């Protein structure tokens, strides 16, 4: 699954095969509980990857992504549970609604960078949350929407796991192709120097908008998968805390590495759901890990792993995600449009 190196080396292929086999055989190896936890990792991993497109590759960290996910989750919840639509049109409508919201906020957000971008995405997330929280006749307010039935072929936990696994794999490949395409390279260029890219004749605003839409689309897919995961959606799943946690996954795993955020999602979901059964002070552990990453491995877990790899090999100097921390645009040398 690793698409970083053009020629996969044998260790990488071996690792990929092992991950694939474990992933596919999981329902036979683990109990239903662990299968559900891994399903959750995949859903949040996808959300984290959608953040990484903006935060890691474009260098603009969105702080309202759980809200974007929430648009899709609420639309599909309403259409399936209350309007009794069948799932294919409901999914299409959910993703369309997410894209529409992403377009509206994208048009505002792409004109900004740095802290202003963060504020607009924060507002985006808060608005969706506010609607979910207040518009009780549609969203059920704090009580949420229940009974979001899954597609008939994915009702049992292990069927749903395979369903999410396939969706995740397809999205991961698409995202991998996206960030390695010429389009993805332009995003990185904008991250490193917006003014230079503009001088070179690239339409920076358009690229930012398209990245925003792509990020929104994948967050929407994560939202659909999330709605089906618990078959329940309520405002607390999409609030600012949820958005921040998703950003933490990206930062923890390694911004600008795409698979790193999935790793980050795995760590956070693991701490919240499994470690917390044994350690009462699990939030402290989460905090310590985060402080450790910020102090000693600013490029995240995957970034740190790659750094050691780069040291052992020669020739590769440029790191993925090296500049990802520069979300405030201090080195971009550009001013907002």
């Amino acid at each position, binding site marked *: 699954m690793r698409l970083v190196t053009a020629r996969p080396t044998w260790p990488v*292929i071996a690792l*990929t095969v092992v991950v694939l086999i474990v992933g596919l055989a999981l329902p036979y190896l683990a109990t*239903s509980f662990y299968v559900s936890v891994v399903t959750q990792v995949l859903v949040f991993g996808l959300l984290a990857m959608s953040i990484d497109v903006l935060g890691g590759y474009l260098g603009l960290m969105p702080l309202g992504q759980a809200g974007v996910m929430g648009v899709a989750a609420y639309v599909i919840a309403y259409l399936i549970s209350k309007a009794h639509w069948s799932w294919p049109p409901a999914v299409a409508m959910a993703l369309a609604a997410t894209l529409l919201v992403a377009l509206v906020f994208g048009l505002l957000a792409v004109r900004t960078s740095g802290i202003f971008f963060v504020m607009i995405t924060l507002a985006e997330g808060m608005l969706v949350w506010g609607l979910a929280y207040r518009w009780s*006749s549609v969203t059920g*307010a704090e*009580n949420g929407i229940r009974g979001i039935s899954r597609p008939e072929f994915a009702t049992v936990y*292990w069927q749903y796991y395979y369903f999410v696994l396939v969706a995740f794999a397809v999205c991961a490949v698409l995202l991998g192709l996206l960030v390695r395409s010429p389009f993805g390279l332009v995003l990185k260029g904008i991250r490193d120097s917006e003014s230079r890219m503009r001088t070179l004749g690239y339409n920076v605003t358009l690229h930012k908008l398209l990245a925003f839409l792509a990020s929104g689309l994948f967050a929407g897919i994560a939202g659909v998968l999330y709605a089906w995961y618990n*078959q329940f959606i309520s405002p*607390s799943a999409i609030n600012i805390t949820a958005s921040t946690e998703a950003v933490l996954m990206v930062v923890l795993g390694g911004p600008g590495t795409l698979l790193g955020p999935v790793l980050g999602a795995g760590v956070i979901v693991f701490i919240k759901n499994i470690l917390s059964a044994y350690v009462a002070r699990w939030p402290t552990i989460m905090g310590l890990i985060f402080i450790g990453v910020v102090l000693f491995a600013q490029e995240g877990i995957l970034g740190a792993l790659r750094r050691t790899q780069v040291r052992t090999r020669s020739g590769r100097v440029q790191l993925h995600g090296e500049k990802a921390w520069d979300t405030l645009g201090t080195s971009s040398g550009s001013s907002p449009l």
Partner: protein
Amino acid sequence: MGHAWHLVGILTAVALLIGACAPPLAPGASQSSGPIKVGFIAPTTGTGAASGNDMINGWKLYWKNNPSPVGGRQIQTSYEDTAGDVNTAVTKARQFVEQQQVDMIVGPLFANEGLAVADYLKTTGTPGFYPIVSADDLTQRSRVDNVIRVAGWTSSQPHMPFGEWVYDNQGYRKVLTICTDYAFGQEVCGGFLRTFAGERGGQVVNQLWDPIGTPDFSSYLSQIPSSGADFVFALQVGADAVRFMQQWSQFGYKDRIPLMGGEVLVDQSLLRSMGPEAEGIVSVGHWAEGNPAQPTQDFDNAYLKEYNQLPSYYAAATYSAAEWIAQALQKVNGNTSDRKAFLDAVRAIELDTPMGHLKLDEYGNPIATVYIRRVERRPDGLLWNVPIQTFQGVSQFWNFPPDAYLKQPVYSRDFQGLPDQLKALGLQ
């Protein structure tokens, strides 16, 4: 490059084929010997932590005072923190059911946690007991058979007799409501107005809705004197309630404008951090720690001795739930593997708890005792709620026929049980 990825692709296809046909492991069922395992989920971190800890305290106290095995089996409770998060709550319930094969789930605190966990328990059939979660629809319009509100309540339940009492006994006719703007606040306020306005014909001069976490109530409080209301009905929760009562007093409204409180506005959990501003406040509840009845006083004293504070409704409800479940377990001789028999035994129990006489209606919600209470100061200086009027046998439908009642939608900002709203729905 292509060669290696072809290999991966072929392997994937093969694995997918294998994965698609064989059945996986089934989750385990509960056992009929060894200890009876209880999975207790409550927030012990985050905003609900104080209430969550009270829940755990009440539950623990019962089993500490009654340690003998039930039907020959010991009770073994494991506690998990939901952090007030829906996703975590469901995962923890899943862990209890699928990993630890618990015989029952007890908890959680918040309505959304409870609703999500109920939907999960529906798929496994594991008994779920909810002493706290009060979302009306859980035992009304969207019931789950194996989820029972043992020693629990619906948000609107105590407020329906309260609405009539205020109209009939206090003689008030015009109300201004100020309730927290979320499902619980809307259901509480709706229950009160359903009888005060919908039945008795009292007038609603204004309804104010403050968002949860309101830092300053000035803008709401300043609207009250000119509104023409006889009295104010208020429902705030947590730290909001503490701030609200302080500002109510600072504005000089105390003892000048009658204030009728919904349940939890002056719950014992909050009285601990309130002062003179709360004294004399009248509110309603299905729990009154100042009830002179023997079971209540015994529980108060035991709790005071153990935790050095008076029990809140959260503690009283989980304590009573423990008593209820213990009696049901005796009935079935500790055999929890026959879930239907166990749940039927739970449904058939009738008992006198610190909260008063309790039994279930056929929808899985207690027919409870409701108290109109006044905050008074005890000789030892602590504040508590003393009943001034008691309603026995209050159902979640009050005096309405359940079928007719269930035709109205659940209370929300759009439906508060007002006469014109009932008329528009053809219910009056």
